[in-house]
């Protein structure tokens, strides 16, 4: 089942209501997301990206995960 950039953005906004979120990609398979969120302050990249994956609620998971190719950039607000 394919996923759209809009769906990814919706999930990320639910997970990071105050965050700055950008999702790009419209071929249904390859996406790039950037999340800038205050909760990332003091957390390393692995912890930041784990939080983003958690917000995506298993969409990245498993061989039948809908989302295979998501390039992820996470930052704390500067």
């Amino acid at each position, binding site marked *: 089942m394919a996923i759209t950039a809009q769906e990814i953005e919706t999930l990320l906004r639910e997970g990071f209501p105050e965050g700055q979120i950008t999702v790009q990609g419209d071929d249904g398979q390859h996406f790039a997301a950037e999340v800038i969120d205050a909760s990332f302050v003091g957390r390393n990249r692995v912890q930041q*990206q*784990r939080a983003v*994956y958690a917000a995506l609620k298993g969409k*990245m998971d*498993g061989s039948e995960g809908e989302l295979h190719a998501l390039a992820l*950039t996470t930052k704390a607000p500067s």
Partner: protein
Amino acid sequence: MSDVKETIQKTVTDNSVVLFMKGTKEMPQCGFSSRVAGVLNYLGVEFADVNVLADENMRQGIKDFSDWPTVPQLYVKGEFVGGCDIITEMTLSGELDTLFTEQSITFDKDAADKIREANG
């Protein structure tokens, strides 16, 4: 399932640098795995590659082990460093050089500088 966990633990303990990837370092089967293997190869880093596509238990096992839903995954001295995006960022920022230096991993610093020049 615990067997897989033990196998992974042993692999990351016995090898200083391990890349869990789709395909092998000679023949990656996914663009993200290819990118990370490519960086390590280019830097001349000696690393063990584990092809998760060869073993369904490993494919799921490494995700559970690292609490990380995607492959590739890089381990240095038993510690999970990150996936493709993190390794790319660390390569460009020089943090990967620092990590390798701190962990006494041999790599080609000139090659790392060349990657940064080409992507500067």
